[in-house]
């Protein structure tokens, strides 16, 4: 099995409180916040590794991100991936999901043939959950979203359990295919010291837009069909009444408010 796992490094959510909106320029200030791999992306990698362990083959990891994301790919290599691809170019900046999927699809085509691609169901920051399906469309393969379990892979067909709002579906899909995974699918392994040492000698390749035959106006801000307009702080509509002090006193106020709400 030739497996590709797409990983999106994103600013560490634990540090999001330090993200500020510049009131004048309306720019988001997020300098100095380190990037981490999303928990679903790690699960996608874990599943890829398990499938490789069972069926043989190799696992490539891929991220479209600024150069610093090398560290995140190293972490993935330390977990057990065989090779890493960093897609990095100024021209990619500002890409929406459409443009991101386009870049990823060009890189995967450049890699050659593949059997299975794994993504997270949604990323940490963008969290649109659209990249998986869009990437599959650009690659011309089937996709299965919200996968909670890969039940079997036999004779070129993949059997999966996908979650829906009110239940689940068992689907059978011919390979090659792309799946996006949910948190139910597995618990990712930790990296071992040996893994970290081995990662250093694994291939970690950077491709630019030119390497992928992508022109500047196909991707990035120019190539993205969506544009981000106004950025603003959410409107606060409520007049808050604040109370503190003795619990007994506060309870009287709380009950009055509860009554006001539900009679």
């Amino acid at each position: 099995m030739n497996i590709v796992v797409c990983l999106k490094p994103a600013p560490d959510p634990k540090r999001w409180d330090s993200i500020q909106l510049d009131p004048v320029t309306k720019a988001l200030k997020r300098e100095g916040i380190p990037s981490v791999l999303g928990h679903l992306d790690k699960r996608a990698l874990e599943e890829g590794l398990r499938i490789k362990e069972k069926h043989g083959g190799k696992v490539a990891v891929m991220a479209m991100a600024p150069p610093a994301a090398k560290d995140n790919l190293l972490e993935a290599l330390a977990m057990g991936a065989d090779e890493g691809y960093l897609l990095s170019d100024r021209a990619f900046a500002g890409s929406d999901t459409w443009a991101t999927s386009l870049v990823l699809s060009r890189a995967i085509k450049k890699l050659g043939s593949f059997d299975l691609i794994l993504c997270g169901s949604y990323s940490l920051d963008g969290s649109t959950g659209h990249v998986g399906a869009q990437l599959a469309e650009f690659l011309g393969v089937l996709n299965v979203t919200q996968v909670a379990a890969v039940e079997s892979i036999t004779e070129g067909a993949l059997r999966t359990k996908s979650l829906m709002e009110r239940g689940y579906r068992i689907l059978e899909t011919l390979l090659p295919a792309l799946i996006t995974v949910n948190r139910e699918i597995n618990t990712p392994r930790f990296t071992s010291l040996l893994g970290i040492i081995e990662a250093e000698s694994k291939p970690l390749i950077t491709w630019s837009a030119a390497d992928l035959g992508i022109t500047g106006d196909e991707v990035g801000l120019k190539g993205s069909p969506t544009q981000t307009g106004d950025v603003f702080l959410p409107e606060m509509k409520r007049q808050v009444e604040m109370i503190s002090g003795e619990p007994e006193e506060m309870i009287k106020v709380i009950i009055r408010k509860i009554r006001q709400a539900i009679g």
Partner: protein
Amino acid sequence: MISVSSVANLKGWKGIWVFIEQEEGCIAEVSFELLTAARLLSRKMELAEVSAVFLGHKIRELSDELLIFGADRVFRADHPSLEKYLTLPYTRVISELIFEKRPEIFLFPATSLGADLAARVAARVNTGLSAHCTQLDINDRGELMQVVPAFGGKVMATILCSNHRPQMATIRPGVYRRGESQEKKGTIEDVPVEIRPEDRKQRVVEVHWAKKPAQTIEESEVVVAGGAGIGNQEDWKLVGQLADVLHGAIGGTRPPLDEGWISEEQMIGQSGKTIRPKLYMGIGISGVIQHVVGIQDAQMIIAINNDPKAAIFQNADLGVVADFRKVIPLLIEELKKLSKDKPVP
């Protein structure tokens, strides 16, 4: 790749479409909510026509309901191969319809099915798609403004899709409400469907529907939600007890989901449920926007947090600065006493 939409011919794209999600012969409520959204937009677009895009099998009898709740037209594709949702046939039928009819706006539910389909369709017809919109509007250039909770959830961002058509967006269940029923006067147009070899590359082995929970968090008039501040499983019981005495549902933020105190169905916010109860009580919740977007339309918000600077207080009607361990047990006792005096029917 076919590029159907270029700046030059944006004018030819007309009307607002809504994808109708349907399961087991029943139209999902969110479909009616999106028809309401489309009607509101239509008023700002010289009464643009609202069309429902309805795929499935044996769905003839259901189509009228769409005309009654806001659609001027129903594009109906009724075929055995469309009985259960499959990405490829649905994408193909809808993309071909887009190429032929050219809608200006296309709304999808932000459900697992809706997001899968919308993403694939947007990639195929080469247009933009925004996710999880909490608000839609039309700007003075006649473009669809799609408001989404943005990066970090600290802010909101307006997404535009100025140079491509259709302008596509997914909208969470619960953001809009089903409208009043109206006299049915629209038309139904049947869309021809053919099967292709690639449709056979994927099949549904089985579908398993969970039993509908007695009262879902979206339907509940009272929701008691807890956050990371509850701290441990033992104290989480207080959240349940309070919900019990108030005859409400239990909800929560992301950390309780990660801890396993609540299920996916109970998480409120950007990547969870949007609720609009009469009363929401948030306990040990900091109130970051990812959570708050899900409770904005609650009629009354009571927040209990021991940090007077917690962001939730900016979004509450009553802010209680206290350790919940000191307040909630007493509150439960008091409410129990009251309900004994006046039994709840």
